[in-house]
């Protein structure tokens, strides 16, 4: 709790210092989100409702998941109530732009073109990359795929990764449904795709005899987002502080475990890096 308070103070001071320099030219036209949230006494966060275990509905219909826990942390640090709004990949950035949500934590890959539309506070809170879904015990490491048929989706970037790097024989289908059917039929040793999507399949309970055995490659970072003009203001800096503390305290690793997500090496690395900053 002390640390969270420290983060708020640090974030606020940084923001104020920056704000003092630039208020004259009105660069932070919208630097009032933080105050608005506090005045309202409620934080509105956009989360996924269909991406288990990051954001999904439990049996009683309530939104739950790893990203919902993160949203709860933010609300707790601010001392306000939390309101969750389900968003989709196709409309999540519009929700922020239109001011319908204060914050978006919705499995979004951090891309340069997205940073032009929404404010993505650093550091990234998660990464996903290339991995495979395979029947338990069939393959252990990437090199086991050599010369064997691996199912994939036509046009997916992941295909080239396993074929050129590990000599797997890619059997690519028109869609993921066909590719996964071919895997279930045993037509290939594994299905190659994005690891977060594979984890979602594993969490769905339909792939109990399957596992994700490899170390993920080609990580792409995920970013949570605040409105673009709030990014360098109080709100963006506050969220940067939150993410920093999640990494440093090992909160993200703990949540990963809680939701049964396979350990991501990125989180371990960030945790080690930030822990090293602390005086011993």
């Amino acid at each position, binding site marked *: 709790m002390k640390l969270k308070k420290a983060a708020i103070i640090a974030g606020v001071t940084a923001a104020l210092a920056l704000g003092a320099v630039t208020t004259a030219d009105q660069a932070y036209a919208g630097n009032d989100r933080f105050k608005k949230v506090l005045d309202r006494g409620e934080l509105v966060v956009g989360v996924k409702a269909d991406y288990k275990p990051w954001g999904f509905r439990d049996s009683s219909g309530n939104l739950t998941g790893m990203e919902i826990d993160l949203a709860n942390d933010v609300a707790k640090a601010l001392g306000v109530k939390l309101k969750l709004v389900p968003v989709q990949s196709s409309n999540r950035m519009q929700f922020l732009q239109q001011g319908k949500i204060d914050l978006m934590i919705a499995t979004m890959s951090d891309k340069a073109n997205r940073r032009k539309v929404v404010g993505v506070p650093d550091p990234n809170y998660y990464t996903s990359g290339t991995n495979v879904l*395979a*029947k338990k015990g*069939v*393959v252990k490491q990437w090199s086991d795929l050599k010369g*064997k*048929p691996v199912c994939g989706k*036509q*046009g*997916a*970037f992941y*295909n*080239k990764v396993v074929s*050129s790097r590990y000599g797997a024989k*890619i*059997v*690519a*289908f*028109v869609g993921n449904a*066909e590719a996964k*059917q*071919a895997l279930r*039929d*045993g*037509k*290939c*040793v594994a299905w190659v795709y994005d690891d977060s999507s594979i984890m979602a399949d594993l969490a769905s309970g339909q792939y109990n005899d399957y596992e994700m055995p490899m170390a993920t490659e080609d990580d792409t970072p995920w970013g949570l987002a605040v409105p673009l003009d709030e990014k360098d203001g109080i709100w963006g800096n506050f969220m940067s502080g939150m993410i920093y503390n999640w990494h440093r305290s090992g909160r993200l690793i703990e949540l990963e475990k809680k939701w049964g997500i396979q350990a991501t090496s990125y989180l371990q690395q960030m945790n080690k890096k930030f822990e090293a900053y602390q005086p011993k």
Partner: protein
Amino acid sequence: MELFGDFFKQLYDTTGWNFVIFYDQVEWSRFVEAIWTTIKLIIACLIFSVIVGVVGAWAQGAKSKIVRYGMAGYIQFFRNTPPFVQILFFYFVLGNLTPSYDAGGYQEAYIGSFGWAVISLGFFAGAFNTEIFRSGIEAVPESTVEAASALGYTRLQSYIYVVFPLAFRVCLPALNNNLVNLLKTTTLAYGIAVPEMMYTANQIWSDNVNVPEMMIVLFIFYVGLVAILVWAMHRWEKSMKIPGYG
């Protein structure tokens, strides 16, 4: 070859037209492999469909009611469903019912995706070929068949030595048409991951983001293949011409 590659490399550097297959060794070998797979697939499908057509046309005129109804059912089934649906059905449904063996973590089927493509496309085009051959057979005058049987030919013998040679000449133009269609339909095999030209072009343009260039290559490739097939069929037609007939 090097000069050729240099030209396309330069074309890319100066105009942005990325014909990567002509200067990149890896993409080139992928492309060449696709050419062979496509040609093998086409030849296998053509031969299989013609055999199905010949046998089918004969069975249509069989004495046994069961054989005749069976043939009618087969033709209805294959003419009334889209070929892409047939390919997926054969591969994903029948493919699981046919024997396979464990090849270290996956099931290696005795009939792979290539085999299922040949079977489904062969039966698909075969259904049309059956009807085409039937039209030829019906064009053979009844009196000719009667003359053959008067000479002591059995039904099978008269089919092989008299009716079919005449019928074949009559229906060659229609058969020609259907085989050209079949050649183009083989692109559907990309749906079950047969590494033919369509599938490979898709992979190459996904990896190199050169969709328009690969589309042009695809187009020219199939125009060329169809031209070769049509030319060969015309030569055949000419060489079988009987003076005074047809």
